[in-house]
């Protein structure tokens, strides 16, 4: 995605979170994870059917007036309220900020990542739930990661992929299994990044094309 090359306002927490959220599917898909869009698809179906209902209501109200259609309008309002309530319920209690759902390349693990931020606190919260099929049945693990955004955004608001991906690979065992290089990189003791290193990483990223970006970076 063009995300990593685009500068964002570092004071805008929503931007920081959105850019980071977008980077996770990119990274995991590049590791050959298979994404599942079930949650999003249900949300879209709910939202668009509610919108279609409102549009229909608008049309019959416009064409036939209020008096002759008010029973239908009352029903439409009730159904719309129900759909919207369910949509809110879905977003708050089912999706719970889920930004990625998928299956590992070997098909053994299912992973679900949700993110959140607290107002005015520039710390990225990730909750990762993974289910791995083993001989003894399903093994569940839950990892909670908390990292300041400053770890993967430079002062000018550029997203730097390497520390971000290292954070994911080391923090989430299921991801680590498929990206040994990132795990290794962190075990060499280079968890702290100097500004020079970040600049170097950033310029390397700009220099490489979008297509080959992922592989090149992992070599670095």
């Amino acid at each position: 995605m063009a995300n990593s090359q685009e500068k964002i306002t570092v004071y805008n927490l929503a931007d920081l979170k959105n850019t980071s959220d977008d980077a996770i599917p990119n990274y995991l898909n590049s590791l050959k994870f298979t994404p599942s869009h079930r949650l999003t698809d249900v949300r879209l179906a709910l939202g668009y059917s509610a919108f279609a209902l409102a549009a229909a209501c608008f049309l019959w109200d416009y064409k036939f007036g209020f008096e002759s259609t008010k029973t239908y309008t009352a029903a439409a309002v009730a159904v719309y309220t129900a759909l919207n309530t369910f949509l809110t319920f879905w977003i708050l209690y089912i999706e719970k900020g889920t930004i990625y759902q998928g299956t590992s390349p070997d098909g053994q693990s299912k992973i679900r990542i949700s993110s959140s931020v607290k107002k005015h606190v520039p710390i990225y919260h990730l909750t990762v739930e993974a289910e791995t099929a083993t001989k003894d049945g399903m093994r569940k693990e839950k990892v909670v990661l908390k990292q300041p955004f400053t770890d993967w955004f430079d002062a000018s608001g550029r997203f730097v992929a390497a520390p971000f991906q290292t954070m994911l690979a080391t923090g989430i065992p299921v991801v680590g299994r498929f990206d040994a290089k990132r795990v290794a990189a962190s075990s060499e003791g280079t968890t702290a990044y100097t500004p020079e290193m970040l600049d170097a990483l950033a310029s390397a990223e700009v220099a490489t094309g979008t297509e080959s970006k992922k592989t090149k970076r992992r070599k670095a």
Partner: protein
Amino acid sequence: MLSGLGNPRQAAAQLMNFGLILSTAFMMWKGLSVITDSPSPIVVVLSGSMEPAFQRGDLLLLWNRNVLSETSVGEVVVYNVKDKDIPIVHRVVRKFGTGPDAKLLTKGDNNLSDDTELYARGQDYLVRKDIIGSVVGYLPFVGYVTILLSEHPWLKTVMLGIMGLVVVLQRE
């Protein structure tokens, strides 16, 4: 931030959010219509004929159900006259008879004469179904925006444009 537009699902979600804001506003309006049984439960005062009670730009909340009693003298009603687009807000000053066929005469508090001349040709009185609601609630000045919008139509385009841009470009 147009980042989302690269991904069809994200683009669809962003478009949906914009659509849902519009449709929710519309359905809230319709819900209020259903509850109050009035095609237009909130109206903006356009003339000074009810001054000093209502001035131009004031917002009125209407109620169009006769739960406890019939619409009677002294109530301020909003009514439509055949072949006239703009509803009128005036007070009922006379009522002859009861039920849906009762004859009602209205007058603006600030007008010297009653509304006979405002009615359609040959019409001397209103009946209940000409009325789209009685005023029950009052909020001053808030509706002035709509007067500005109707007097300067280009403002509408500008406002819709800005609203659309903000919602499409912003992801929360």
